[in-house]
């Protein structure tokens, strides 16, 4: 499944938070979107999902496999969300409903998009939990989010995003709120699942080092527009734009150097 964003502009209260952004995620590709806070990266994700806040206006084009999403009726978009497009959000603490057991939350995308009995849905949820490496899947699906660790909650989020085998996954800073060891495991999990299911991935982050581990191509965002794009390896070692250079230098100055 391919995603083509063409000249996307999002205006909120007179301010352009996304300004003529164009980006392509070819079928099966892993594309990163990197920028600092305020650069417009989360807004882009929300625009693709049709979940922009009230009062936001979007122009341009967002085509999923050629099918236009921008301006599409809510019913259509709701059908796509969770089935064809999976999303993983940043904060594992608030992305899950605290009063619903995690198994039911994992199964929710399944029950929303297909007529599946509760029992069958639970079976699929257990399978999904096992797939993302949650310990004791049979028991864990009956637990509540607060009984799981942050890393486990994020795995639940990933299970939810992938359970319907979507063609495209949008990940908005999924590892930022995690401990470094958990982060590494979750990133590895991401890579494995995306490769196995041949999903296209749009990975949004502010961390270059994380980007280097997960994406092949990336676009650098500043002030709502793409200032540089290319293979991640090129962005890291031969950055051209000042913003990219700034990011790379700052990352080098603050990141672990093994050698």
């Amino acid at each position: 499944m391919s995603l083509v964003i063409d000249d996307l502009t999002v205006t909120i209260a007179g301010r352009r938070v996304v300004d003529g952004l164009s980006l392509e995620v070819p079928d099966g590709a892993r594309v990163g979107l990197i920028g600092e806070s305020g650069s417009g990266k989360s807004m882009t994700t929300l625009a693709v999902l049709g979940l922009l806040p009230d009062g936001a206006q979007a122009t341009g084009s967002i085509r999923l496999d050629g099918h236009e999403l921008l301006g599409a009726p809510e019913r259509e978009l709701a059908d796509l969300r969770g089935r064809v497009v999976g999303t993983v959000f940043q904060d594992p603490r608030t992305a899950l409903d605290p009063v619903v057991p995690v198994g039911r939350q994992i199964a929710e995308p399944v029950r929303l998009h297909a007529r599946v009995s509760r029992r069958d849905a639970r079976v699929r949820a257990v399978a999904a939990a096992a797939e993302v490496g949650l310990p004791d899947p049979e028991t864990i699906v009956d637990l509540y989010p607060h009984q799981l660790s942050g890393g486990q909650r994020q795995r639940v989020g990933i299970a939810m995003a992938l359970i319907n085998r979507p063609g495209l996954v949008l990940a908005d800073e999924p590892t930022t709120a995690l401990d470094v060891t958990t982060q590494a495991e979750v990133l590895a999990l991401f890579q494995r699942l995306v490769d196995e299911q041949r999903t296209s991935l749009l990975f949004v982050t502010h961390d270059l080092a994380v980007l280097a581990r997960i994406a092949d191509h990336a676009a650098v965002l500043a002030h709502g527009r793409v200032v540089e794009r290319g293979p991640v390896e090129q962005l890291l070692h031969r950055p051209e734009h000042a913003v990219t250079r700034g990011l790379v230098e700052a990352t080098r100055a603050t990141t672990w150097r093994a050698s």
Partner: protein
Amino acid sequence: MSDPTTAPAPPLLVARGLTRTFALPRRSPFQPGPVRHALVDADLEVAAGESVALIGESGSGKSTLVRLLLALDRATSGTVTFDGRPVAPDRASRLRWLRRQTGIVLQDPYSSLDPRMRVGDTIAEPLRALGVDGDHRRMTAEMLERVGLSAGDAEAWPHEFSGGQRQRIALARALVHGPRLLIGDEPMSALDVTVRAQILDLLRELRDDLGLSLLLVSHDIGLVQHLADRVAVLREGRIVEQGPTDDVLRRPQHPYTRSLVDSVPTLD
């Protein structure tokens, strides 16, 4: 580099056998309740002029340790001394000597500044609380300039500043009274990477200019590498490994340290 013929720098802050246990609510009236061992038998030292980092993930006990070191909490057992004097919770007036010599910067720049106080008043608070002599307004203005802001910012409210700028303000507050030890509890984890680099530079500059000792609590190994002389690794309330930064991080002995170092994403 230190001259091997002189005696090593005297320890400034010493913690020995620090333990902190929390009693959790009882499940039944007939059995004693469960306990949580937030910190177990921790030994730590910061010498004058030294920068020490405490590496730990969430739940490792690092915030507990920081509070114990600053007498903001009472240890279940163990001792803390600063310049040889014992440190323990007490009335604010009896702890002035400690407060005078220490400053702290906290993690979240959005909640560490009182939203209803102007920036200048927040920065000057240690001066007022500790009864420091001198022109507080001038000292505040000087400190603002030092951290890369302008003296006029004293009149502004915290919400008018970005995360990075707020951390600068927090730094100004932590240093305005001229402490000898600066403690940072994850001071950069809420910041963007370019801002992080700026604050890192600022920290180094201030440390060198003011001759500060530094205790940095962080889970960010990259930051630790760039800032600390010595490192202690905290896991589930225990210090599992300690030593010079390079030794511990490049040749880790403990499996936990090794897994930490291996998990960190790098640019190479």
